[in-house]
């Protein structure tokens, strides 16, 4: 989520309407001014709340760079500090704009609580916000908060042991954003949920629509699905495919990395990168844990460990 950019877009839209600007050139001029001094132009509470969130998210991002120098206890404190600041700022943003879904979403993330409770309260907030609106579109900055909520709800449902709900929510998000090529990655969550539910027809339909080599999520989900259906030769081929397409694939699966909660979206990543693998493995974790022998099996497949070790050596990680 680029909160600053979205706040600017909102301001530009509103200002253009107020000033009756219709030509592209005038609109570009306006955008340049807003971009240079967004705080001065953000007179609407929704824009002000969003700008406030933009600043806290940017500062969290900056501070993260220091984590590499911290030991575990210091890191835990730093993390809790970040979440505390985020919660306080989100509450402040809600005072400015009580309707802000982004502030509600970030507040839910920053508040320690069971994930199924988080799902329920955010579903309620979304339902209240939706009463007035019709269709959603990713291109429209006013729709985006709702789409982000849907994406978070789908991912949370998977870690709340509610894969059916994950399917329902991700499916809805995918329908809303298909024409924009699913920018929030609903299909990733959907693929994992299908694997968890052993829903082969559902998974195959997704595979047909988005291609066999769509993402690390789909490659992992395919391997898990086939393993769970006990089609071992096919599962073996799926694992081999995943490891050969993602050079960090085996490494990422064998040594899962700590991933902080997304704020609130999945961070962007280069296709095929270690980041992609890390996010996919992180999101697949509940399903991997639910399939106790899966990692044993991966480790015993020819070439899997070698591939993980080779990648670790190349990157200079400790064995």
């Amino acid at each position, binding site marked *: 989520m680029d909160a600053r950019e979205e706040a600017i877009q909102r301001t530009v839209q509103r200002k253009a309407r107020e000033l009756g600007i219709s030509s592209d050139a005038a609109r570009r001029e306006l955008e340049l001014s807003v971009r240079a001094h967004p705080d001065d132009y953000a007179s609407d509470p929704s824009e002000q709340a969003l700008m406030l969130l933009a600043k806290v998210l940017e500062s969290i991002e900056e501070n993260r760079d220091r984590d590499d120098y911290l030991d575990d206890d210091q890191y835990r404190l730093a993390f809790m500090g970040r979440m505390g600041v985020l919660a306080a700022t989100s509450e402040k943003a809600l005072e400015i704009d009580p309707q802000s879904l982004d502030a509600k979403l970030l507040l839910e993330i920053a508040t320690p609580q069971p994930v*199924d409770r988080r799902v329920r309260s955010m579903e309620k907030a979304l339902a209240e916000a939706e009463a007035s609106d019709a269709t959603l579109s990713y291109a429209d900055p006013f729709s985006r908060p709702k789409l982000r909520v849907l994406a978070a709800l789908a991912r949370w449902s998977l870690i709340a042991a509610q894969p059916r709900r994950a399917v329902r929510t991700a499916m809805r998000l995918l329908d809303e954003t298909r024409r924009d090529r699913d920018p929030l990655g609903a299909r990733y969550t959907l693929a994992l949920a299908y694997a968890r539910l052993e829903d082969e027809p559902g998974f195959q339909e997704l595979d047909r629509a988005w291609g066999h080599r769509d993402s690390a999520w789909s490659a992992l989900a395919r391997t898990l699905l086939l393993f*769970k259906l006990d089609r071992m030769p096919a599962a073996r081929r799926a694992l081999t495919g995943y490891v050969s397409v993602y050079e960090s694939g085996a490494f990422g699966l064998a040594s899962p990395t700590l991933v902080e909660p997304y704020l609130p979206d999945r961070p962007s990543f280069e296709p095929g990168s270690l980041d992609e693998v890390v996010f996919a493995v992180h999101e697949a974790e509940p399903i991997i844990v639910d399939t*106790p022998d899966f990692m*044993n099996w991966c480790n015993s497949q020819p070439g899997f460990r070698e591939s993980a070790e080779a990648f670790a050596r190349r990157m200079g990680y400790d064995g």
Partner: protein
Amino acid sequence: MAFDPAYEDFRRLAIAYHDPTMDSDPYEQTRKAMAFSQQFSWGNDALARSDTDRAFHLACEAAMIIDEELPFLPESEGALAAADAQRLLEEALSLDEYCFDARRMLHAQTSPIMDDHIHYLMERMDEVERVCWERADRLTRNVSAKDPVFFERMSLELAPYLRWVQGAAELNLLGGRYRKAYDLARRAIEIDREDLADSRFTAVLALAKLGDEDELEAFVQWVVPELGEAARDDAWIRLARMALAWQNDRLEEASAHIDWILATYPHAASALTLQSELPEPMFARLDCDPYSNDELVLAVSEATVLLQECADESGRGPLGTFVAEHPGVRAAYHRELEFYGESGEEIGDEEGEEA
């Protein structure tokens, strides 16, 4: 219901000692039956048996060591007992290579990786089916289907096959292969519509994991009418329905299932709060009285796959937390603790250890 190794051992011998020519004299028949029972309980090792029955007897002894003694022994004695059990199983197989209970338990004892054991069971399932049916056919060839002996023989010869299939179903459930677990449980029920193996319990948990409410209700419609005396409401189906209602945001309905369990089983709140996971029995699902606390503890333990999914540091998953924090469960748990006084503290301590 369920399988009790000692009782099945008794039934095998009783039918072997049963002499169809005496049917005409009820007095003599009763006297002989009494004498046999007495002999069985006093010194059943001394009774003459066929190699098959002897092998089964040894497998039962091993089963009782593995399922009833091992879990309670300290580690040092456990290793010895396990070695004893293994020797018994090997001896059983030397007498009867088709003593499938012995094969299954021996393989489980010697292969620590669950997936290997599952594949062992899957690969040999058809052979087990064939041999068990051949034996059942051979031993009932000249018996009228109306004769109680016919049914007794059939059920004794097919029991090892049922346990094989049900064991595979249970392991697939634990291993995260829910479709397979469900299919195997159905396979077991199709052989025995009265479901002596209680495979329907495994089936409903698997369907809850698959999140398939329609299939669950269709399955219940299919299985219950044929159960006969065993047909009853039980903790497994309630836990499965509760999990699905919870997933689909019907929290009141989920609560109603918990309330039913609280009202039906003694000391249910402790079982629902502690959510202990028992070791997987090797012979078959432990035999418990219907609606006893033991039965609930067993059902909750088998429902671990639902309760602990996505567990956090506490060891409970969101569903496990929902159950343990259900107001009715909390209130009843406090009452149970107070009722037990001193021993209540022990229950509390156990909870600490679980966490």
